[in-house]
């Protein structure tokens, strides 16, 4: 219980910080009436919470699915597909407020479908190892096309595309928050319902089957739900790396590996991490703004290095 209260407090601090801090100074007593706060900072903070939470849950589930603790939701080619979709929309100057997110979402879903198809071995069984390799291959291929388009684009487009590829929440609005809030419950519930069988999967597919898990449907459900979460996150905020990789590891240290506790904790911790990172991205070089993916990478990589050393230690004892 104490750990949940602690996580709740951390999340509250992150949220308040995101609302109070910013390049424009807003006095505390004006917070509730300030336009900057109500129409920019609050929806942006909520979006950071939803996106960070989605990436945390997607990462935790995918690590269990591909049975590799080093898996990241973007390792499965989704970032490549989304990036390609977004850059195409930018280069073709597709107009409209939803053009970029929709193009990125379509690109991510395209990559997901392709990786899924490649991961089906013999047309029947989803092989997580093949899935991982297919993800890397599809991501690299999409990345090559993306770079080709960017290199032929005009300077202004290039900058936009570049910024998008590193992720950012500056597109946040109440509309994006509502769309995300309406969209993510379904995949989240699907993944939470798979929490116990995911525990079994850590033993291997055949032992999980012996313990009563329907492994093939389980793998499909988890892959599709986690990919749908990631696709939505990338559509509204670009490629924000390391959240989906780091958050499950940190939460596993505190909550253990059992997914019934791990998945909710990963959602809250992912939200808190992205809130902190986004606040830092807005404040650090104010009035300009860093892509939040740079902040998560700058924080995530050293943290990951520490975890790798711990993990290696545990492995050496095994």
């Amino acid at each position, binding site marked *: 219980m104490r750990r949940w209260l602690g996580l709740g407090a951390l999340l509250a601090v992150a949220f308040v910080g995101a609302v109070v801090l910013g390049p424009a100074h807003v006095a505390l007593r004006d917070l509730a009436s300030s336009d900057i706060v109500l129409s920019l900072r609050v929806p942006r903070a909520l979006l950071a919470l939803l996106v960070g939470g989605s990436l945390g849950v997607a990462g935790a589930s995918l690590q269990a699915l591909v049975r590799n603790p080093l898996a990241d939701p973007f390792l499965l080619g989704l970032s490549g597909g989304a990036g390609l979709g977004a850059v195409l929309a930018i280069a073709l100057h597709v107009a409209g407020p939803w053009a970029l997110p929709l193009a990125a979402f379509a690109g991510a879903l395209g990559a997901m479908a392709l990786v899924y198809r490649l991961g089906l071995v013999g047309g029947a069984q989803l092989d997580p190892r093949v899935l991982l390799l297919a993800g890397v291959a599809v991501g690299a291929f999409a990345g090559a096309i993306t770079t080709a388009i960017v290199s032929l684009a005009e300077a202004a487009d290039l900058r936009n595309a570049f910024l998008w590829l590193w992720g950012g929440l500056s597109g946040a609005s109440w509309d994006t928050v509502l769309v995300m809030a309406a969209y993510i419950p379904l995949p989240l519930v699907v993944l939470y319902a798979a929490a116990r069988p995911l525990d079994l999967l850590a033993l*291997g597919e055949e032992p999980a089957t012996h*313990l009563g898990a329907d492994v093939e449907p389980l793998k499909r459900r988890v892959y599709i739900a986690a990919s749908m979460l990631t696709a939505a996150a990338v559509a509204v905020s670009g490629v924000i790396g390391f959240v989906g990789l780091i958050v499950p590891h940190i939460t596993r240290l505190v909550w253990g*590996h059992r997914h019934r506790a791990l998945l909710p904790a990963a959602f809250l911790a992912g939200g808190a991490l992205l809130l902190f990172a986004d606040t830092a991205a807005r404040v650090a070089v104010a009035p300009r703004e860093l892509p939040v993916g740079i902040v998560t990478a700058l924080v995530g990589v050293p943290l990951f290095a520490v975890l790798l050393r711990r993990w290696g230690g545990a492995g050496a004892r095994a």
Partner: protein
Amino acid sequence: MSTATPLLSVRGVTYRYPGAAADALHDLSLDVRAGEFHAVLGPNGSGKTTLVRVALGLVAPDTGAVDLAGRRAADWPRRALARVVGVVAQREDNLFPQQVRETVLLGRYPHLSMWGAERPADQAAVTRALERCDALGLADRWIWTLSGGEYQRVRLARALAQEPSLLVLDEPTASLDLRHEMEMFELVRTLVDRHGLAALMITHHVNLAARFADRVLLLADGRSAAQGVPAAVLTHDTVERVFAWPVAIAPFDDRPQMIPLRQPKESA
């Protein structure tokens, strides 16, 4: 012999892996009843593990039928089957560090509802399973600190936590030393005698199978070379032929024991 419905009934099963030149299993039959310890022996590649996969409904036979507790193996939902059959597979991974009680608790999965938490009855079943495997003292240990023999007892406890009627063990004593081999066989024998379980064990230990099992199936190239009580199956000629090595067979405690000889005979 008991006339009750066998917990496992394999009847005339033939199975060939896709693209293979020969049958992995050919016209094989086998019944395992409650209170019966059944051992399956045979050289490498004789079809022992394929038999387990077919028996558990993981692979559908080309011809013949497999029933588990009176129901066609392929018709069982996996969760319901896991309440009837507990399996100690040849291999498993440990992706994340686990403690012994935690991993045994995974055996309760087929008894839990999708959203509900573990009940006191589940914890009690875990404790009971650990006790039966003489592993209660290990409950708070991390898996990676266990010896090979301790780990196998914990895995057996996890299968028992499922509260099955039939235990299937695929080479549970591989790479264990003498004491731990004996402990595992004694444990399975006790579970069968005292708790009325049925056990099907794949093993390479001809002598331990002869000492502990009620019935033995000797496999050779996917076919039954002999089947029945140990004394009827493990005869000099049959064992020599199946394992392609000269042996002597001598009785001990009324059970046949095999001694491999040093040199192959000229004729062999």
